[in-house]
Structure formats: structure tokens, C-alpha cells
């Protein structure tokens, strides 16, 4: 009798591992997945984007839904844990059968879910500026590529208005985005005649919080008699102590300006900006831009989040554009089928919040305007320069020799994300 019970217990224990019987997808809703970390180190940035998607879903349901169905957001927490990202992506696609996923922030999380999306033919909207060098058939990149952020920012600093900078500090966190951006910038600066000894490159670990030495070094480097600027690709968490140290060591924006690509309104809300006025940031969106679309978006956001002090930022706009484009493409295709929607995505247009129109290109990246702003005492970024027209994102940078020969184009005859020649013959 004993062994029967033991056998039964073992069976039960093993069978209890299966509480995941495939859920029946309700037919009357369209599900979208939200794959942003709500806990762990990345929750600081990603929680806002989860709320943005929820706001967009709420909005479209108020307007009567999509294809006559309600849209339902499935929120999961990948907890800033990269293998968990892959697991949750699989769960969203296989178990929840979502039509599209909005998610990821860090490059490593995107890399982690990429095989899952490609295997299961899912659709991911990735809303953060990143290093480029990628174009997946199953991902639409609505954030900036390096040529939509870094290069215009450096151009501006080299111009008369930017202070005719001759000497450059490229400071970043040691991971792929800063490495790539700095590599592109180094090649670009050298092509503009900047000498190697006028470029200082510095990498720090994630979450670095003791900046005394590095800020002192920057000061020393800037004391060589040539106009110096810092191009910062320092990642999220490390920025607050960096800027605090900068302010306290008395580095003023008109002496050594710092232009950042990862610092927006949301990050500035956590910093006292009184002593940082004049330092710069380059993005495709600023909350301070006066435009009817932007005013409406900000009002909608403040109402949704029920906090009049909350700010908006660039990745939120990227999420907004991605979501709008997806809904338009679904309406156009008349189905949420991934292959049909993908085809409908190409050339899809959505009005930017800052004016002009964003276009989805066949390399799965956007054409967007580039704005350069100076930090104000109230934590906002004031535009000091803006591109005349939208700039098309390069998936593959022409300044990196290995990637210069590659091209991303998912329409006939190329149908490829990283090819040197088309897959098909015309």
C-alpha cells in the first residue's frame, strides 16, 4: 500500500509541474503583449513604457477597438532577467497567442528574445534608441539608430552655434550600445580631421557611482586649451551620480558641454538640474516642443497616470508611434496575422508628436526628425537645433567597415536583414 501512495505522490508531484495547460484564447479580443521589466534594475525606465502601452490600449478601446474587437493587454514581468525575457516572450506568443508584443529596453533583452520571435514568427515593437547593426524580420525598431542621434549631435557641437568643439571625450558604460556609438563616432570624427590625441574614450561598469576620478580626468583633458565636449553614452542608473559630480566639480556647460544620448526628461526628473543648465541631449522627441499632437499626448498621459507632475520622453513617443502604426497596419490588412501586418507596415505613416511625419522603412526602422536640446532648470529640454527634415535610420552604419557593405531591406528583391546583395533576381 505504501508504495502505491509513494508512486501516486511522485506522479502527483511531477504532474503538478503542469499548471500551464494551454489557455483558450478568447475569440472576441485582440491580445497584445507587454514585455517590460516591472522589477529589478531596469524597472526604473521600463515601467513607464508599460503604462504607455496600457494608455494606448485604453485609448483605442474607447474609440471602439480594432477590427470591431476589444484590444486586451497582457502584462508580464520579465524582472530585468534576460533568460526570463526569452521565457516570457515564449509564453506570450505560444500560450497567450498575442498578435504583437511591445517591449524590451536593453539590447541584451532584445537579443535574448530575438530567437523566440523568429522561431514563432511573432512581431516585436522595440521602442528604444539602440546601436543598430541589426534588422530582424520579426522586429520593428521605433527608437533611434546612431545616425539619428549621435552624428547630428556631434555635427551640432562642431558648428559655430555648438561652440566649435575640437577635443572630444567619449564616455560610456561598457556595453554594446556605447561601444558601437563610440566606434561610429570615432570613425566619423577622424573623417572630419580630429586627431587621435584629441579623443579620449572611457568606459565604466554598469551602475558606476563614484565618478570623482573620471570627472577630474575630464576636467584635466579639457584644460588643454582647445574647446572640449563630452559625448555621454552613460547608461541610466549611473547618470545621477555622474551629473551630481559634474555639477559639484564646477564643470559648466559653456566650458565643457556634455551631450547625452540616454538622458531624457524621465531621467532628469530624478536629478536636480539647477546646476546642469546648458548640458545637452539629442533625441527625436522633447516634451517641451509645442505642437498640438504633443499637447494632447501630454494631457492624455497626465490624465491616465493621474499625476500632473509626470513627464513624457522619447521612448514613450517611440512606443506611441509603434502602437499607432501597428493599429493602422492591422486595419489596413484587415487581420492581425503577422505576415499580412508586416507587409502593411512598410511605408506606414504616423504624425510625430513634435511635428512632421514618421515613416516606417523597409529596413524595419523609422524616419524621424532629430532634435538637440539644452537642459533647463525645470528639468525640461529646450530645443536649440532641429533637423530640417526627417532622417532615415541606417540599420547598418556606413562608418563601420564590416557593416558598410550590408543592407537591410525586407521587400522584394532583397528580403533580407543583413545581405550584401539581393536574395532574388529581378
Amino acid at each position: 500500500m505504501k508504495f502505491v501512495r509513494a508512486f501516486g505522490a511522485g506522479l502527483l508531484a511531477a504532474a503538478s509541474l503542469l499548471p500551464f495547460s494551454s489557455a483558450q484564447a478568447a475569440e472576441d479580443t485582440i491580445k497584445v503583449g507587454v514585455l517590460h521589466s516591472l522589477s529589478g534594475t531596469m524597472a526604473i525606465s521600463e515601467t513607464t513604457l508599460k503604462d504607455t502601452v496600457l494608455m494606448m490600449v485604453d485609448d483605442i478601446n474607447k474609440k471602439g477597438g480594432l477590427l470591431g474587437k476589444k484590444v486586451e493587454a497582457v502584462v508580464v514581468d520579465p524582472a530585468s532577467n534576460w533568460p526570463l525575457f526569452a521565457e516570457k516572450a515564449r509564453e506570450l506568443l505560444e500560450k497567450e497567442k498575442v498578435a504583437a508584443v511591445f517591449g524590451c529596453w536593453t539590447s541584451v533583452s532584445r537579443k535574448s528574445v530575438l530567437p523566440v520571435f523568429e522561431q514563432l514568427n511573432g512581431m516585436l515593437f522595440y521602442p528604444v534608441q539602440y546601436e543598430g547593426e541589426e534588422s530582424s524580420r520579426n522586429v520593428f525598431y521605433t527608437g533611434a539608430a546612431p545616425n539619428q542621434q549621435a552624428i547630428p549631435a556631434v555635427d551640432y557641437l562642431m558648428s559655430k552655434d555648438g561652440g566649435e568643439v575640437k577635443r572630444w571625450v567619449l564616455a560610456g558604460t561598457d556595453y554594446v550600445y556605447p561601444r558601437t556609438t563610440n566606434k561610429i563616432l570615432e570613425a566619423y570624427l577622424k573623417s572630419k580631421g580630429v586627431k587621435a590625441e584629441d579623443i579620449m574614450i572611457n568606459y565604466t561598469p554598469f551602475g558606476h557611482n563614484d565618478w570623482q576620478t573620471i570627472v577630474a580626468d575630464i576636467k584635466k583633458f579639457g584644460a588643454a586649451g582647445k574647446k572640449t565636449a563630452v559625448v555621454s553614452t552613460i547608461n541610466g542608473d549611473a547618470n545621477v551620480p555622474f551629473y551630481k559630480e559634474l555639477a559639484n566639480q564646477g564643470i559648466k556647460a559653456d566650458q565643457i558641454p556634455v551631450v547625452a544620448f540616454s538622458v531624457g526628461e524621465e531621467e532628469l526628473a530624478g536629478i536636480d538640474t539647477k546646476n546642469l543648465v546648458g548640458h545637452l541631449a539629442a533625441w527625436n522627441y522633447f516634451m517641451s516642443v509645442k505642437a498640438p499632437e504633443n499637447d494632447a499626448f501630454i494631457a492624455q498621459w497626465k490624465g491616465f497616470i493621474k499625476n500632473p507632475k509626470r513627464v513624457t520622453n522619447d521612448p514613450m513617443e517611440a512606443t506611441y508611434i509603434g502602437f499607432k502604426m501597428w493599429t493602422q497596419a492591422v486595419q489596413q490588412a484587415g487581420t492581425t496575422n503577422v505576415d499580412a501586418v508586416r507587409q502593411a507596415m512598410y511605408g506606414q505613416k504616423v504624425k510625430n508628436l513634435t511635428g512632421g511625419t514618421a515613416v516606417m522603412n523597409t529596413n524595419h526602422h523609422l524616419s524621424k526628425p532629430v532634435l538637440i536640446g539644452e537642459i533647463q532648470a525645470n528639468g525640461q529640454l529646450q530645443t536649440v537645433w532641429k533637423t530640417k527634415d526627417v532622417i532615415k535610420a541606417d540599420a547598418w552604419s556606413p562608418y563601420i567597415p564590416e557593416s558598410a557593405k550590408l543592407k537591410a531591406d525586407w521587400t522584394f528583391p532583397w528580403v533580407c536583414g543583413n545581405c550584401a546583395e539581393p536574395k532574388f533576381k529581378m
Partner: protein
Amino acid sequence: MKILILALLAFLACAPARADEFSDAVRALNADNFADKIAAVETLAGLGDGRAATILEAMSDGNLLATKDGAILIQRASGFTDALTQAPASGEGAEPITVNNRLRGALRGAVGRLGLFSPDAELRKRAAESVLTSPTPESAGMMRRALANETVPEVRTLLALALANLDLADEDPARRRAAVAALRDSSDPLSRGRLQAMLENETDSEVRAAAEKAVSEINFRLSLVSIGANIFQGLSLGSVMLLAAIGLAVTFGVMGVINMAHGEMIMLGAYTAFVVQELFRAFLPPGLIGWYLPVAVPVAFVVTFLVGVALERSVIRFLYGRPLETMLATWGISLMLQQLVRSIFGASNREVANPDWMTGGVDLIGGFTLTYNRVVIIIFCMAVLGALAALLRWSSFGLHMRAVTQNRPMASAMGIPTGRIDAATFGLGSGIAGMAGVALSQIGNVSPNLGQGYIVDSFMVVVFGGVGSLWGTLVGALSLGLVNKILEPYAGAMLGKILVLVVIILFIQKRPRGLFALKGRSVES
């Protein structure tokens, strides 16, 4: 109405031409492009009108506004005034005039030059300092005039130095040589940069030799400065590590609780600082805002003390003698506290501003800045440690605490309420962590993950110094900070940290109980 306009016209006609030029230039400050704005700034600076300085300063602080109909206003705490007439005005619909860095630089130069002739010696000194950082050939004549009239020796030195910097590029070798001689005693990296730039195309051999000598002398002084700076930075990093670890030295070192929630106590302290700051902003006059920090310290202590006592009574007291189980339970507590803070305050960073008295720093020689917040933290850290040591050494609570941790049954037999002492001790450790959180909010992030960044380092410090020894924690933290900062310039921040960890691992092999090991029989248990 007509009469009014006529009167105005008459007034304008009678006004001197210079004033007209002045008001035109002021209006031009709101030009469409930055080049025109800069031209207007230069004009204003050259006119010598007394009002210019105020207007330009307001502009560089972002306090100059323009209304739709073109009036230029100055914004002050007391309200708006018209820049030209200085009459009070309504700020309705006025937008701040945008300033960019180039314009800001021009403004700073202009204000500086205007300041050189101010009757106030302090203003002249500031102006001289500002022209010293960026002397331009255009301002040379002005500086010479100012130097001729200057009586205060300090300002004279500054002006002479600034002129010497310009003279390096002079055509006359004698002047260049004099300039080199003047710069020889400076320890300013900017002057060194200019001397080096001059060496690149210096033809006069005598001047060349003098300049080379001057550069090497400045280099020597600067290397001394950088050693000094390194030591300060090491002490500062060490004191931050120490501050984060003192609380753990009590809960882990003295009580033996592997307190994984220690980092979250630091975080709670930092959030308390945030709440106190917000209360100050909401309910007290703006002048008092600088006081929020001294108030936040005891408040944070009380809050985290109470949280600590609650945790000890509800969870940890059931786990004494099972240190590894406490690790598991406190890990659970730390997850819950993080999520709690995330639910209440949101996941993003919260802004905790440095009070004015902790902002900035004093420029010592050679471009080395002693930042106030770092100095305050070093002092605060030593004060906390001193107070704790005194409490343990001389108070009856300290005596009881030591008795309980050394021999619990005996202490209990002597009538010491061991349960209450345990709770108070854990509360004390948590409270100190809370105070540390207030201090750390001044140099870093205030986010739900704040504590995670300090927990591993804190354990290293306590173990390296020797569990149970406050003195060991002090020496351990400061030496780790110093080693880290000495390695950083050579190995980089990342490798430096790795090397420090390897050093700790190897060091523990030599001294398995840390720097200052407790002696006695209790050690073996």
C-alpha cells in the same frame, strides 16, 4: 490716448541717442537667431551703461523674458520688472529668452568685462577669475586698463596672469619671455596647456628653454596635486563604503544576523530624505529648504529604527542561532521592501537635491576641486562612527548589548532583558543604515534598487575588517576605498574593482577572520 502717445514720442525724442542705442540692443537680445543675440550682448557690454550688467546676468540665469509685443522683462523672486524702465510689469504671456551655450559663454565674458570696472572689489575678483579661464585677445586692452587702476593685490595677480596667458602669443620675444616667467609659478592646467601650445611653434630658443622648464615645473606640481586628489577621492569613496557598512557591522558583525535587507534600510533612509524634502517644499518657506537635510537625518533614523525593531520582533527573533535561515528570510524581506517602495513611490528615480550649502566645491590648486558634499559625508561618517563607538563603550545600553552578544544565558541571568536588547540592537543597526541612506541620497540615485548597489560591498567591508570589530570596519572601508582609487587611474574603474575583490579573497586566506579578528573562545562557534 492721443496725448499719451504724443507725450511718449516727445519723451523718446528727448532721450539721448545713447539710451536709444541701448534700448535697441536690449530688444535685440530677443532676436531670432543666436548670432544676432550675441551681437546685441557685445554691443551692450561695450556701451558702458550701468543697467547692462543686471540685464545680462538675468539673461545668463534664464531670468530674462520677452512678451508677445516685444517688451523685455526681468524675472525676480519678487515679481517682474521691465528691463528698460525698471518699472514693475506683468509677466502674463512672457516667455523666457532662449539661451544656448555659445550665448552663455558670450554673456559670461561680457559680464566679466563689465565687472572689471565695478567699484566692488569682490565683483572685480570674480570678473578677473572669469577672464582668466578664457582670456580673449579682444579683451586685452580692457584688462590692461583695469590692471593700471587696480589696487587690490589679489585681483592684480589674477589680471597679470590672465594677461601673461595672452602675451604667450605676442610677437615680441621679450614679452613672451616675461609671460613665461609669470606663468612659471602657476599650477593651472590651463596655463600649462597654453605653454604647450606655444612650444609647438616657438622659434626663439631662449624663450623655448624657459617655457620647457616652466612646463616641467608645472607638471611636477600638478603630479603632486593629483596624488593629493587621489588620496582625497580614496578617503571619500572609503567613507561612503564605511557609511553603508556601519549599520551592517552592528546587525551582522555584532548580532551575527546575515541581514540581506540591510541595503533596503539604506534605501528607506534615502526615501525618507525625499519625503522630508517634499514636505519642506510643500509647507515651509523656500528659504528654509536647505534645512531639510539636518532634519531628515534623525527622521530617517527613527523610521528605519522602527522598521528594524518591527522586523526583529516579527521575524528575526525566531531565527537566532540559525544564521543561514536568517539570510533567507531577510532576502524575502528585501524583495518585499523593494516592491513596497516601488508601489508607493513608483519605479523611477526620485529627485533629492543637494542643499545649497552642499552644492559645488572649493577650487584648490591645479584644477582640483574639493566638493562640499564629499567633505560633509566624510565628516558625517566619522561622526556616526564616533557616536556609535561611544554608545557601545560608555552607555548602559552598550554594556547590555555587549553582554548579550557575548554570553546570552549569563546576561539573561544577570537580569538583562535580552529580547528587548536584541530588538534595540537590530533597530540601531537599521537606524544607522537609514542615516547612511540620507547621506548617500546626496551623491547618487534614489530608486527602489538603491540598496542592491551597496549590499555586496558592505559585506566585503565588514568581513575584510573583521566581523564584530568597528575599528576593523573603519580601517577596512578606508583602505578598500584608497586601494580602489589608487588602482583606478592605471587599471580603469572596472578592472580596479575586480583587482580589489581578488585582493580581498587572497587576503582572507592569510587572515581568515579579517583584519581585526576577535580573540577568544566564542570565535570558534
